[in-house]
């Protein structure tokens, strides 16, 4: 859950980028890291294997500035997408405030997307979160690939986005859709903080 420190007037929120292996979660964080001004971000950490697959997580702290008199900070995490890192995904999800689900738009990856989303729901439920109310945005990544390799947005949305949450077509390598997704989840998470009683 978000940490609101009334004495130092600070808010800290945890956002997790979730999705199947190689869907572009780390690329999202790399894009954010490369685009933000120095004074608004910390060091990006990547705990990766020697083949650059995320082993534990990527982590990027960023400073959103002052909102309602509170210094507002976000912690962005990715999880390893590969099926065998289930325990790590569960750990990284602890205390999460919002999720960006990064789906791979390639047709051949559709089943992996569905499996990863189910995995997310199971892990959230095990951690005591209600998957139906957890702040979530969908990002349909790799839209720059040839159209005949891609699942149409409508179909992705039908298969994955049954809650009807905001969704964003993206091409994380060039940055398209990356900031839109982050902005959307930041907005949803912080808006919930302003009236927790009404939203819970």
């Amino acid at each position: 859950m978000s940490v609101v420190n009334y004495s130092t007037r600070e808010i800290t929120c945890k956002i997790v980028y979730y999705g199947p292996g190689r869907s572009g979660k780390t690329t999202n964080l790399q894009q954010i890291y490369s685009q933000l001004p120095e004074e608004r971000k910390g060091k990006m950490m990547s705990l990766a294997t020697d083949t650059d697959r995320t082993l534990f997580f990527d982590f990027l702290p960023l400073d959103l500035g002052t909102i309602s008199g509170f210094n507002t900070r976000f912690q962005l995490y990715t999880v390893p997408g590969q099926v065998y890192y289930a325990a790590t995904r569960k750990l990284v999800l602890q205390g999460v405030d919002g999720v960006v689900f990064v789906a791979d738009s390639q047709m051949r990856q559709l089943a992996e997307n569905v499996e990863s989303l189910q995995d997310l729901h199971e892990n959230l439920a095990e951690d005591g979160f209600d998957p139906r109310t957890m702040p979530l945005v969908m990002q349909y990544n790799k839209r720059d690939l040839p159209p005949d390799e891609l699942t149409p947005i409508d179909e992705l949305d039908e298969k994955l986005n049954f809650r009807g949450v905001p969704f964003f077509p993206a091409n994380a390598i060039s940055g398209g859709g990356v900031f839109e997704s982050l902005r959307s989840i930041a907005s949803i998470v912080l808006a919930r903080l302003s009236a927790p009683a009404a939203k819970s």
Partner: protein
Amino acid sequence: MTDPKVVEPWVAAPLKRLAEDARLISGVLLHPSGRAVGQFGFSNAADVMSICALTSAINASSRELGRQLHGKPFYEMHHAGGDRQVFMARCMAGAQEFLFVGVFDRESSLGLVEIYFAEFQKALEQLRPHAPEPAKPLPAGDFEGELNRSLDSLFGRIG
């Protein structure tokens, strides 16, 4: 040393005492999920967040490593560097688990840190609140407007 910066006020006094008695250079108390509870010795919030994320990961990995190596999780880790040493351990306050990571140099020693860390744990146990503080809503004000302006300045106007 300057007073610890804390999210939960009841940990301030025990943290300050631990820092002074064990002669620690810096330290962070956190939840196992990686959320900072209090810290001393750091001036940059992003550094504290990074240390918390890494400590949480090291804690989870070392517990599993302990289980694999001798059937029981490792709850305490120590690294002795050339100039500085790092001490990392869990502590309990009732049912609530915390992690602590502290840095010290030749002004202190592992033995000294362990002695005062045990005192620190007792103090947490004594001072812990028995009921969680109810969540307070943020002041409404122009929350949405300020949020949008902040997001605009960070990410640029979208749409």
